[in-house]
Each structure stands twice: as C-alpha cells, then as structure tokens.
C-alpha cells in the first residue's frame, strides 16, 4: 500500500517509536486489540475472519477429495494462497495486488508447509490420507485481504490457524474398491455430527517485528510500515520453536538484535496462541454452521514487554 507521509509526519512517527509511545498510544511491544469470528463462510469447511485494528482478513479452508501427490501415496495435499481485494486499496485493482499476494503467500507457505517431501508441515499430511495411493483430502487454505492497515502477515497467519482449527472434515466411508487395481468407491457422510477435526496444535503463528529507526515494534500500522528499514517475520509453534523466518527490507540486522527479536516474537506468539485457544473453546467446526464471534482484549493482558500481567 502506498502511504504518503510528509517529512514532518515521518519524524513524528520515528520520534514516537523512540519514545515508546506510538500514534495510537501503544508502546513498542503492544498489539492492537483484535477480534476473531469463526465459521464466517458457510460453504467452506473452516473459516475465520480477523480484524486487527484497521486490518481485516478472512481465511477459509476448503477440503476436496483428491488423488495423493505422485511419489507420496500416503500423504494428503495442502495448498496456501492469498489474494488482496481491491476493496482494501485501489492499488490492488487488476494485477496490482499480485506482488503483495505472492509475498504473503510465500511467507505463509514457508512457515506452514514442509519441504517438497511434505515432511515438517504444520498439519500432519499423513492424517489427510484416506486410501493409500488412491484417495486423500486436499486442503486449500485461502486468505483474502479485505482491508489493510499494516501487519497483514500476522493477521493472515492467525486467521489461517483459526480456520484450520475450525475445519471439520466429513466422514468418508469406503464401500469398495480397496484392492490396488480398482477405483475406490466411497460415500461421504451427510450427518453433520460426524466429522473429524484436524490436529492444529503445531500450526505456527507469525509475529512480525518491524524495525523503524533504532527500535523494533510489533503489529505495525501501515504508516509505521512505510517507515521500516527491515522487518522480520518469525513463525513460532506451540513448543516455542521457530518454524519459519522471513526478512524484508534491505537493511542488515545485527545478530544480537535478531535473537532479541526472536525472543520477543516467542513471547507474543504464546499470548496469541492462548487467545486463539480461548476463541477455539467457543467455536465449533463449520459443519454446524453456527457463526461464532469472539472479542479479545489483548493489550490488557500485556505489559510493555509482552508478558502477561494478570
């Protein structure tokens, strides 16, 4: 997004970050309040919408029955793509949003998908297999940016994790065709009570740290992002291990700063994960088609260092 700022505003933003008080009153390491809605798209198997300040994204998971990828007969398929809607910014019209979409989806693919062999993916691909070599689930995770006010990657990762947790796969009953020569014959259960959930505990959340001047901040707004010299996106999973690391911006970072950033990202990811788990308590997989809205007052639980205060 193109953000035009006058020289005076740039100085003011940088000064605010240095003084640990940003334009909207947050400190350097404070997230904006955010809100998760799950089961927002009835046609999808799982969906979630997250509003993080002025940023608004939707993620959906669509499951299809498919043939396992060649060479990996006991694996399912997982695909991630992101689209930027022209409602977010006029620049996204036509092919304008393509570059940003590619950037975002690549960063998400790196943290969510494993290597080409499928090892190390956030979702156990073997669990998506139904009949070895013949039938498996293919999960298409799509992100849509509806409105952009910075920190799109974090919002998308949270939305995708919520959508995956919200996803319910209908039960597949194999009726025949189990021998290697035959085509498998199956029946999809029409009973909304019969579904399987995905194991999503290892799906990481991404925390982006944006360096402006000498300091780095979390959850940058579009104005702050326009002033960044470097940004590091750290994907952290439940165990607190780093699953993916994406750096944008040409400026180099000192190793000690990078390690510092990773530890801050870890702290924040723990809080985000807790918030997500809390939202998950109230949501059910999409099969029941009951939209659930959940409000998170994040910054009350965080002190300046991103630690929980109460």
């Amino acid at each position, binding site marked *: 997004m193109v953000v035009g700022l006058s020289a005076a505003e740039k100085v*003011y*933003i940088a000064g605010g970050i240095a003084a640990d008080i940003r*334009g909207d009153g947050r400190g350097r390491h404070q997230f904006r*309040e955010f809100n998760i809605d799950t089961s927002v798209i009835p046609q999808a198997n799982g969906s979630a919408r997250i*509003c993080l300040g*002025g940023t608004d994204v939707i993620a959906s998971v669509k499951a299809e029955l498919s043939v396992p990828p060649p060479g990996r007969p006991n694996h399912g398929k997982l695909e991630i793509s992101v689209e930027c809607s022209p409602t977010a910014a006029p620049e996204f019209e036509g092919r304008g949003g393509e570059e940003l979409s590619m950037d975002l989806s690549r960063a998400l693919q790196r943290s969510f998908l494993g290597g080409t062999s499928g090892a190390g993916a956030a979702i156990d691909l073997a669990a998506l297999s139904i009949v070895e070599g013949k039938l498996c689930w293919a999960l298409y995770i799509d992100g849509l940016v509806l409105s952009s006010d910075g920190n799109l990657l974090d919002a998308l990762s949270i939305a995708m994790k919520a959508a995956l947790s919200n996803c319910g796969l209908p039960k597949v009953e194999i009726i025949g065709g189990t021998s290697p020569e035959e085509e498998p014959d199956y029946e999809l259960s029409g009973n909304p009570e019969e579904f399987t959930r995905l194991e999503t505990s290892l799906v990481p959340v991404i925390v982006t740290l944006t360096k402006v001047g000498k300091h780095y901040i979390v959850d940058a*707004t*579009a104005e702050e992002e326009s002033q960044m010299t470097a940004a590091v996106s750290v994907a952290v999973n439940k165990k607190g291990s780093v699953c993916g690391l994406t750096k944008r911006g040409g400026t180099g970072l000192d190793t000690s700063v990078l390690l510092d950033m990773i530890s801050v990202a870890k702290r924040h990811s723990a809080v985000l994960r807790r918030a997500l788990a809390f939202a998950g308590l109230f949501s059910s997989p999409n099969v029941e088609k009951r939209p659930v809205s959940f409000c998170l*007052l994040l910054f009350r639980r965080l002190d300046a260092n991103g630690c929980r205060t109460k």
Partner: protein
Amino acid sequence: MGEPMRRTHFRLSPSQKERLSQAQERCREAAGSVHASAFVNVGDTILVDYENGFLRGHGTQLVDGQLLATVCGVVERVNKLVSVRPLRARYNPETGDVVVGRITEVAPKRWKVDVNSRQDAQLMLSAVNLPGGIQRRRTATDELNMRDLFTENDLISAEVQTLHQDGSLHLHTRSLKYGKLENGHLVKVAPYLIKRLKQHFHQLKQYGVQLILGCNGYVWISAVPPSSSEMEIDQKPADSESRQPGAGTSEGQNVEITRDLRVRICRIANAVRVLGACGFMIHPDSIVDTYEASLSWGIEPRQMISGEFHVRVVEREAEQRSKKG
C-alpha cells in the same frame, strides 16, 4: 490515522453491545430535536405538500409523482425547497472554510491538494505568502522554487477561497496562521462531525497542544508551535500580516517533543478518534471533555480505542443529554 472510519474498528462483547444500544437509545430520546421521520434511506418517500408545490433539491428524485430520497440522510426544508443532506459524504466545501489538506501534486503555478472533497483542491502560487512577506508578482524563479514552500505529501492548513461552477475549489494560505503543519499527526473523521465555527485553530494551553479542526474532516493535532506560544493565533489575524516574515509556515521549527507531550497529543488524538467513531460532534469542548473523562477513569491513552471506552463515552453522553433535557 488511516481511512475515515468506514466501519467500527472497536469490538464489543455481547454485554457491551447491549449497553451501547441502550445508551444510544437514551441519546436519541434525550435529543428529541430531530424527529425520526427526518431521517430517510435511499428510496424512502419524503412527505411534501403536493398542493402548494415544492422545489426538488439535492438528494431527491420524482418518481411517479412521488418525491423519493436518493441518498441516506436528513431531510432539510428551506421554504419550498426540499433536499436531503447525506450523512456520509465527501467534504462539501464552502468559501471561508478552514481545511487541512495534503499536497498531491506540484503543477505549473499551483499545487494540487487532497482535501477529502470530490476533486483535488487547487492552491495557486499567487495565493500563498512568499517567504519574506513582501507582496509582489510571482516570477519564473518563484515557480521553479515552489517545492521549497510545499512539496508532495506535505500537510498544510488553508482556507477555501473560491468555489467554481465545475466543482473545483481554490485555496489560499494568505495568513500567517496557515501553512505547513509539523510536530504532530493527522486524524481523519467524517466531515459532517465538524461544525463550522468562528475558530478552527485551538490552543489547548493546559496541555500544550494545538488543534486544527479542518472542516473537511481532517484534524491536525500537534505541539504548540513556538512562534505562537505567546499569542492567540486567531485573535490577531489583521496585524499578523505585518509580523515576522515567513513565520506562518513555521518551517524548521521543530520543537522538542517530550514523552509527556506525546502522551497528551495521543490522548487528544484518541479522544477525536473515539468521538468520530461514536458519531458525536467534534469541537474543542467535547474533545477536552472526553480527554478529562479518560483521565478521571484512569484510562491509558492506548485503552481509549478499546470497545469498553467507546461504550462508556456513549453512556456518559446519554446521561448528560438526559440531564439537559
């Protein structure tokens, strides 16, 4: 910052939603000034006296002999003229309005300025004060040095000089109080929330904060510029012309902004954001009121953009209105 509020950015729990709708209901009851039928949606019939005749104004259309609203807003009647003033619209300029705008383009002999109107406004080179303060013809050299005065993306305050038939508008900055804006930040709200007042430049001395309420919905909140800290800006427009040359542009006058001042600026900015999101009129009194309320409730600036604070502000407003009524 960001776009004017297209939808609410704050989130509410079910109990907060309930409280908010109750408070809004009380506000409506207490107001009593505007009858509910004065609000129309697109396609609503407007009651008019067909026998005595009427004049069809903006925002209306005659369909099968019936007067319908073409926009969502408030019905206004002036004698026989019936029009609908839209609630959510772009800025409708009037001559003499104080506006805050952003330079989008430097063109021959003029700057193009975004003022949240349908078209970019024009600021002619002949409508600005040159540094040095002397009145003279603008030369080709002046034209070449236009970027020294204002460059792309600069924020300026200005006044609407003339409106033209084709919808374009011209600005001027021929007073020392207008010019480049520094040491603060911009908050955008819906233009209809800012009433045209005698003064749009306000110095909240107790906080050391300067407030420029642009009629176009752009609000500039900054530290008090040092040149004007002793004088009331609006009090002396007449003799300010003869004052220190070039002081109006306040260029390069970067005051030291302490953390405390930043917190105050931020609190004011968030008060404006909250009032804008709640749809309350924005004027210095309401801003100071919200500011003091946040202080007395012990709310930190960053918590002011949370749902709870919005609900409390609306509840408070409802209480005040019912007391008055």
